[in-house]
C-alpha cells in the first residue's frame, strides 16, 4: 500500500469510528482516565492525601465545593484518592496485558500453524489454565507469596494468555489455508516470515479488540482482589480497597463507597465501549 493510500485508509477508519457515538464515548473515557492517572500529582486538589494522613475535623464530609467527592473516615479527599487509585488499576491492566497478550499470541500462532503435537500440547495447556478462576488463582498466589500488586499481576497474567491463544489459534487455522500463505510457502519464505509477516498482521485487529475488552475485565479482577484485602496494601489509594473501607459506612456516608465503585465501573465501561467500537470498525464478529 502506498503511503497516500494508507493515509486515506486510516482517515476513513477514523471517520467511521467517529460516527459511532458509544465508541467515541469509550475512547474519551479511556483517554481521560489515562491522562488523569498520569497527571495525578498535578491535577488532584490534595495530592498529599494519598498517604497515611489523618484529619479528624474533616472526616465524613459530604461532597462539596472543597471536596467534590467528599472525604473518608479519616478526613482524606476522596477525589484525590480515586484519581490516584486509577493509577493502580490502569497499571495492573497494562502490565498483565503486556505480558499475556504477546505470550498468548505467539502460542496461538504456533498451535494454529504447526498443528500436530505442538497444537495438542498448547491447546491442552490452555484448557488447564481455563479451568482455574483467575480471581482464585490470584488469591492463592497472594496467600502463598505476599499480597502485593506485583504478585497479583503475575498471577492474573499467568492465566490470561489463554484467551489470546484461543483467539489467535482459531484465526490462524482459517488463515493458513488461504492462497497467499500457500504462495509465500511456495516461494520458500521462512516459517518466521510466514508466521509474523504474513499471518500475524491479519490477526492484529482482532487482538486489539480483545485487548481493549480485556483491560476492563482485568481492572475488575484487580478491584475484587483489593476489595478482599489482597491487592495493593494501604495507605496507597486503591479503588477496590476504598469501596470496601467505605462499605461499613453505608448508606449514611454513601459517597465513600459509591463514588470509588462508580469510578471502577466507569473505567471498565470505557474499555468495553472502546473494544465494542473497534470490533464494529474492524468487523471482527466473534471476538468477545
Amino acid at each position, binding site marked *: 500500500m502506498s503511503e497516500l493510500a494508507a493515509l486515506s485508509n486510516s482517515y476513513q477508519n477514523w471517520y467511521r469510528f467517529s460516527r459511532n457515538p458509544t465508541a467515541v464515548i469509550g475512547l474519551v473515557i479511556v483517554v481521560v482516565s489515562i491522562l488523569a492517572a498520569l497527571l495525578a500529582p498535578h491535577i488532584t486538589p490534595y495530592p498529599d492525601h494519598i498517604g497515611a494522613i489523618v484529619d479528624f475535623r474533616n472526616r465524613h464530609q459530604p461532597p462539596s465545593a472543597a471536596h467534590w467527592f467528599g472525604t473518608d473516615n479519616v478526613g482524606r479527599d476522596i477525589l484525590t484518592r480515586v484519581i490516584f487509585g486509577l493509577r493502580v488499576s490502569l497499571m495492573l491492566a497494562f502490565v498483565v496485558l503486556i505480558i499475556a497478550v504477546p505470550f498468548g499470541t505467539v502460542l496461538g500462532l504456533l498451535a494454529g500453524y504447526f498443528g500436530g503435537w505442538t497444537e495438542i500440547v498448547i491447546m491442552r495447556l490452555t484448557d488447564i489454565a481455563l479451568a482455574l478462576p483467575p480471581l482464585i488463582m490470584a488469591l492463592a498466589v497472594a496467600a502463598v507469596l505476599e499480597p502485593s500488586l506485583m504478585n497479583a499481576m503475575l498471577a492474573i497474567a499467568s492465566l490470561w494468555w489463554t484467551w489470546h491463544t484461543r483467539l489467535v489459534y482459531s484465526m490462524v487455522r482459517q488463515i493458513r489455508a488461504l492462497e497467499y500463505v500457500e504462495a509465500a510457502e511456495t516461494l520458500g519464505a521462512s516459517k518466521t516470515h510466514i508466521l509474523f509477516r504474513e499471518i500475524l498482521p491479519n490477526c492484529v485487529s482482532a487482538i486489539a479488540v480483545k485487548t481493549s475488552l480485556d483491560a476492563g475485565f482485568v481492572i475488575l479482577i484487580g478491584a475484587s482482589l483489593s476489595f478482599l484485602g489482597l491487592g495493593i496494601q494501604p495507605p496507597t489509594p486503591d479503588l477496590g480497597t476504598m469501596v470496601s473501607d467505605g462499605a461499613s459506612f453505608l448508606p449514611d456516608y454513601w459517597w465513600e463507597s459509591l463514588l470509588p465503585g462508580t469510578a471502577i465501573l466507569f473505567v471498565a465501561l470505557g474499555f468495553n465501549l472502546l473494544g465494542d467500537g473497534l470490533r464494529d470498525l474492524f468487523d471482527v464478529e466473534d471476538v*468477545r
Partner: protein
Amino acid sequence: MEFLGFLARRLAWSLLVLVGLSVVIFVIARVVPGDPARMALGPRASAEQVTELQEKLGLNLPLYQQYGRFIGGLAQGELGQSLLTERSVNLDIRTTFPATLELVMATVIIAFLFGVPLGVAAARWKDSWPDNLVRAFAIVAAVMPTFFIALLLQVLAGYVLQILPTTGRLPTGTEFEADITGLLIVDGLLKGQLHVVFEAMRHLLLPALALSLATMGQMARITRASMIDVSRQDYIEAARAFGVPDRVRLFKYQLRPAFVPPLTIMGLEFASLIGGAFVVELIFSWPGMAAYGIRAITQKDLNAIMGVVMVSGLFFVLVNLLIDVLVGLVDPRIRIRGRRA
C-alpha cells in the same frame, strides 16, 4: 454409538485437564512458598517444631514423591489435613460446598431465566428500543464489579427497603439439618418443611441476583447474536415463506439451534462465576466454600487452599463436561461431528 465415543473422548480430555490442574496447584502450594511448614507455624516457631511438622506432612521427601502422595490422596478423594484446624480438608469442604453449589445453581437459573428471554426479545425487535435497552443492560452488567452490585443490593433491599434478609442462609435459630443433599431448598422440600424452603429462597435471592447480573447480560448478548445469526438461515426463510406463525418459528425453529452458543459460553463463564462467589459469599456472610477459602488464604492454610482451588477446578471441568453433553443433546449435528463447532 457415536455419542458414546464422543463422551469417552471428552472424559479422557477432562481427566487430562485435572491432572494438569493438580500439577499447577502442587507447584503453587508446595514449590513456590519454599517451606510450607515454616509458613504454617509462623516465624516464632522453633526449628524442632518445623522439622516435626515437615516430617508429619512428608515435606522432607523429594518433590516427585510428595507429588505422588498428593495425587494418590486426590485419587482417593483425600485432600489432606488443614494445617491450622487439624481437621480434614475433605470434611471442611463437604460441609461448605453445598452452600456454594446452591448459590451458584440459583445464579445460573436466574441468569438463564432472564438472560435468554431478554436476548430473544432483543433479536425479535432488533435495533429498536427493547434491543437498545438489553444491550445497554448487558454492557453495564458486564463492567459492574460483582462486589459493587452485591453491596448496592444489600444496602438497597436490606437496609433501606428492609424487604429481604442480607446475611446467611436461614434466620438465626432455625432448627433444620440439611443432611440429605446439603441444599436447603431441596432438603426442605424432601422433608416437607415448606417454611424452611421459603426462608432459604428469601435468603438466597439477593446473593444469587448479585452474582447473576453479569452472566445474565452475557447470556442476553450471546442469545441475541445467535438468534440473529440463525434467523438468516435458509430454513427460517422457508418457514416464513410457508406462513409458519411468528411465535412458532421463533421458539420452535430458531431458539433451539440458537441455544447452543449461550450454553457453551455458560460453561466458560463458570470460572468467573466461582471467582465472583468468593466476593458475594463474603459480603452476604454466606457460609460456603468461598468464605472458607478466603479464611484459608488469609491464614495461609496451604492444604485448605489446595483443596479449595482443586475443587473449584473440578467443578469447572465437570460443569463443562455436562454442558458438552447437553449441547450434544440440543444440537444433534454436534453429536455426529463429535466435537464442538
